[in-house]
């Protein structure tokens, strides 16, 4: 087993939360360690921790307001214990989430521009987007909004210069080396190349968020008709 990296530091986010930081740049290996560490901490079911949040470069821990100790020391100790004991295997974490995506022109708002920019045909972009092996690196920005890593490096485009005021719910978008799914109609600057009929977040579901950190994601291209049949957005 490869040696586990040591955290760069335990940064207090106020007196009731800390960020255990492993990297200041995006590194998929490090992200995987953050996911595994988060799983190990969750498994301990500590009554004084109420939220364990794996992020791109580390893990945030939110403490119960009644916690009287030093959150920084407590977190450092906890992380050391978990690392010593060994973290769960990355393959045992997360689930596989299949995401149907319709890449039709009416949903793929930025596909022509991306195609022009990359000098790759829209068909080839879709093919490459579907073929990727993806992992959810973090869920944030909005409820159920996943940052998904594993995008084909050939599809790396910067974000749009001018963000859209409203990106339609379900939009599947790319930027740099990641892909995202918009859970609601919100503003955003990622390049929209398709749309899923699935609701990425629904508070009424037993599992409200379609995506959790560590999940494997498979995009499946669907025709417009299937998209309409599967439509979950209200």
């Amino acid at each position, binding site marked *: 087993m490869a040696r586990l990296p040591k955290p760069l530091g335990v940064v207090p986010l106020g007196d009731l939360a800390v960020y255990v930081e492993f990297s200041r740049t995006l590194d998929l290996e490090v992200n995987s360690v953050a996911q595994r560490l*988060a799983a190990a901490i969750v498994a301990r079911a500590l009554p004084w921790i109420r*939220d364990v*949040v794996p992020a791109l470069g580390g893990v945030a821990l939110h403490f119960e*307001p009644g916690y009287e100790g030093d959150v920084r020391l407590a977190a450092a100790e906890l992380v050391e214990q978990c690392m010593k004991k060994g973290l769960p295997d990355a393959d045992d974490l997360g689930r596989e989430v299949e995401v149907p995506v319709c890449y039709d022109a009416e949903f793929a708002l930025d596909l022509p521009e991306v195609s022009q920019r990359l000098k790759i045909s829209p068909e080839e972009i879709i093919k490459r987007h579907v073929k990727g092996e993806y992992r959810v690196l973090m869920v944030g920005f909005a409820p159920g909004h996943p940052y998904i890593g594993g995008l084909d490096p050939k599809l790396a485009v910067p974000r749009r210069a001018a963000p859209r005021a409203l990106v339609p719910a379900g939009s599947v978008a790319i930027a740099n080396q990641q892909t995202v799914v918009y859970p609601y109609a919100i503003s955003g600057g990622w390049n929209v190349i398709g749309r899923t009929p699935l609701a990425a977040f629904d508070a009424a579901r037993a599992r409200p968020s379609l995506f959790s950190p560590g999940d494997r994601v498979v995009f499946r291209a669907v025709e417009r008709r299937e998209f309409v049949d599967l439509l979950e957005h209200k």
Partner: protein
Amino acid sequence: MSIRVLRPGLLTTVQDRGRHGHQHVGLCPGGAMDPVSLALANALVGNPPGAAALEITVIGPELEFERDTLVAICGAEFQGAFPHNRPVLARAGSKLSVGRAARGARAYLAAAGGFAIEPVLGSRSTYLPGRFGGFEGRALRHGDLLVLAEDVSRERFARLKRKNGASVRWSAPPLTLPDREPIVVHAIEGQHYASFDSTAQRAFFDTVWRVAPESNRMGFRLAGPPLVRATDDEILSGPTCLGSVQVPPSGVPIVLMADHQTTGGYPRIAEVAAADVPRVAQLAPGATLHFALCSLDTARELRRDASLRLESALRSISWEFGK
């Protein structure tokens, strides 16, 4: 057994102590902006401290009571003839008109027995951006009918000692209201404090900041000198917390409040001490604050002191109920 909304006020929502354990899927805890006043209001009507109540913001609602209802308003002082910080039996058919906030920004109206509202993900809090929780996932409107969960008002009122007409002689202490402005808000250095130039670092702690009109339950924008970073390095999007002070490229700091985003890519110059967040929540747009640098240990002591003050207030209230 219900309360009818005759006039909704500026932003009246149902809030409790929020939904925890969902930040890993991007859902913030939300809940009452000032949970201290929520706990006091609940205690005054004999409810558990985390029961759902109405969060009233800056301009209050007008409500009509179908039956005798034991209610209490805590937090900001609003104009109107209604006594604050004490249990009051609102008579059947009576109306309660809450005016404008005179001191503070948010008050909590608790009703004995609580509201008959289904929890969503373990909480009755309204999460406005997601349109769920609370009363149909939205702020109250004219004509809404808030049904009470239990008919316990008369029984609880009868249990109150030293009863005097429709109210009592004592009142609970306001624990989060500003007594003078600017209020002092304790904060520790944020992760990216060192990335700001020395002028910005000094300005952050020297400036009297004003809460800007574009402030809401997600965050308070602060008007003052723009804060400039010494570097333009991009920051890897990372976790945030209630009370984090972010500085977007505009240089205008934003204090993250109850409905904040759980992650963000803006540098965090400071983190507000947890004990002071409910006091920040009591600032209306235009109100002023300044930040005082404190250590993590001091922040923890402030939190312990605040918690002792609240516990002691809750104990005296429960004694008045003859518990």
